[in-house]
């Protein structure tokens, strides 16, 4: 219900992440790690709580930025519930026909046709298309997950009070036993990062790997990332890199802050090479990625963020040192994970270590 979201009962601390887009290579290790850990069951085929999309692009669900939701002047904006066709993916293939019915040389492997439009899109459908014309084509990758917003409009929209923002760390969660599948949350979420499980008839979204966090282990998306670009920690930790990048140095900015929900996932925006003139000489005045495009995603603060990054680069190129660049380089892998540096492989996994209520379910 709405009252759990009021500031008087707001979170004591807020978990947050920063993704350095200059290092993201679109490898999908984060999304696959998440998929393997959380959304492998029936009804979750199309669910990717973590996604990486090529920008500019339609993303996932398709054209999500046009689907409404969020807040304008503090008032909810009506939104659209992304449907099965908008997410696409979760295809079923004709394995039986190809492998077991003697048609291996006549029929090729393909998704089985459905009437719900799922075969027309997928979570990474427009990969590497980007925008611009040769020789000035451009694109970059944008990892996205639930923003665990400071004002979770999803939870506020839920009639049955199934969602809440956890007091100890600000994670937005859903009691699936209480969820009635009304999907108001999916409409209200402006980031369209809530999925509907068609088998269990409940909505689902990123839980920030809270069972891992509770054991001091970083979320799987961050830990699986080979690019050392996903920082995890508490936004309130003034000594931590996230607070410094967001609040002190201003180099990490939220996505679509104008949606009004106070997202807690931040991005170090992408620098880009310069444009080339028609004669292929370098136009030193114009970055390849149009600044106005980046502003449309990350707001006007993206310009000062990029200027700071550029100036720090020049400092280092001139022989100086930069705490900002040292932070972004991440010399020590575990520096990414704030207080969540435990190795899941080293945790006690004996039967006795499993809480009674979980082992009873199994």
């Amino acid at each position, binding site marked *: 219900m709405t009252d759990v979201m009021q500031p008087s009962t707001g979170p004591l601390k807020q978990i947050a992440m920063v993704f350095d887009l200059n290092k993201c290579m679109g490898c999908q290790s984060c999304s696959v790690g998440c998929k393997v850990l959380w959304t492998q069951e029936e009804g979750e085929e199309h669910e990717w709580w973590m996604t990486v999309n090529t920008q500019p692009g339609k993303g996932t669900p398709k054209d999500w930025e046009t689907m409404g939701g969020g807040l304008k002047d503090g008032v*909810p904006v009506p939104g659209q519930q992304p449907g099965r066709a908008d997410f696409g993916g979760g295809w079923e293939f004709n394995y039986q026909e190809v492998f077991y019915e003697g048609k291996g040389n006549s029929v090729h492997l393909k998704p089985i046709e459905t009437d719900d439009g799922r075969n027309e899109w997928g979570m990474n459908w427009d990969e590497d298309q980007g925008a611009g014309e040769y020789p000035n084509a451009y694109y970059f990758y944008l990892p996205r997950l639930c923003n665990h917003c400071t004002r979770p409009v999803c939870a506020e929209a839920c*009639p049955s009070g199934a969602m809440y923002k956890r007091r100890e760390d600000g994670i937005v969660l859903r009691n699936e036993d209480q969820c009635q599948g009304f999907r108001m949350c999916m409409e209200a979420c402006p980031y369209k990062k809530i999925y509907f499980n068609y088998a269990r008839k409940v909505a689902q979204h990123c839980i920030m790997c809270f069972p891992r966090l509770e054991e001091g282990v970083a979320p799987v998306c961050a830990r699986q990332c080979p690019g050392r670009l996903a920082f995890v920690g508490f936004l309130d930790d003034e000594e931590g890199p996230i607070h410094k990048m967001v609040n002190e140095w201003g180099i990490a900015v939220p996505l679509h802050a104008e949606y009004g929900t106070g997202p807690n996932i931040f991005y170090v925006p992408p620098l880009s090479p310069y444009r080339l003139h028609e004669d292929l000489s370098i136009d030193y005045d114009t970055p390849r990625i149009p600044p106005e495009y980046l502003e449309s995603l990350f707001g006007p603060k993206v310009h000062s963020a990029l200027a700071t990054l550029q100036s720090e680069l020049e400092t280092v190129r001139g022989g100086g040192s930069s705490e900002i660049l040292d932070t972004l380089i991440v010399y020590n892998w575990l520096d990414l994970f704030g207080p969540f540096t435990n190795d899941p492989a080293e945790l006690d996994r004996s039967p006795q270590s499993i809480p009674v209520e979980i082992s009873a379910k199994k």
Partner: protein
Amino acid sequence: MQVSKVSSDLSDPGAAGWSGVTAESVALAPMPIDAQPTEYVRTKWSALSYGNVAEAKVAAAHDGATAWVRLEWADSDQPNTEFPDCAAVYFPAGGDAPAATIGSEAATVNLWFWRSDEESGRHLTGNGPGVFRPQDGAVSAAASLDGGRWAVVLAHPVAELRDGGRLGVAVWDGSNEERAGIGAATTEWVSLSIDS
């Protein structure tokens, strides 16, 4: 409304035994927009049309242990969307529960809830339009769609119907994306006279 005592199983909406049970026509109206529990729902639906099923035929019977409530209404002929058609009957669970909003924060109702995409019914509590939570105890359901009319039978131990003494009805048109408090419900309780 008379709740007849019968000796045959009436869990099937097409059961012959229903012909001996008098059905009443019950008027339905959109659940009030002002009573919707969240600002999002009020904002989204204030300018949209919903709850257009104006009438349902209701019949009820019991065999001393199980009560069956049969609902019948005209389905909209719009194509289906992602949302199922739904229907519910509900009974006050003590307190002065309003019928038009399926209970209130202060006064709970017991719901027997059916949705067209599930085999069984759901047993819920209601504390306002769409303020539904699961509760223990199974509700069974059977439905048929014939000639553009839904017929649904919901079944549960008769005690809940006896305790409530009154009955409310709600219907949601899935093709209009109706769910939660966005649907049609009885504005007044239907008093029950239960044969012993």
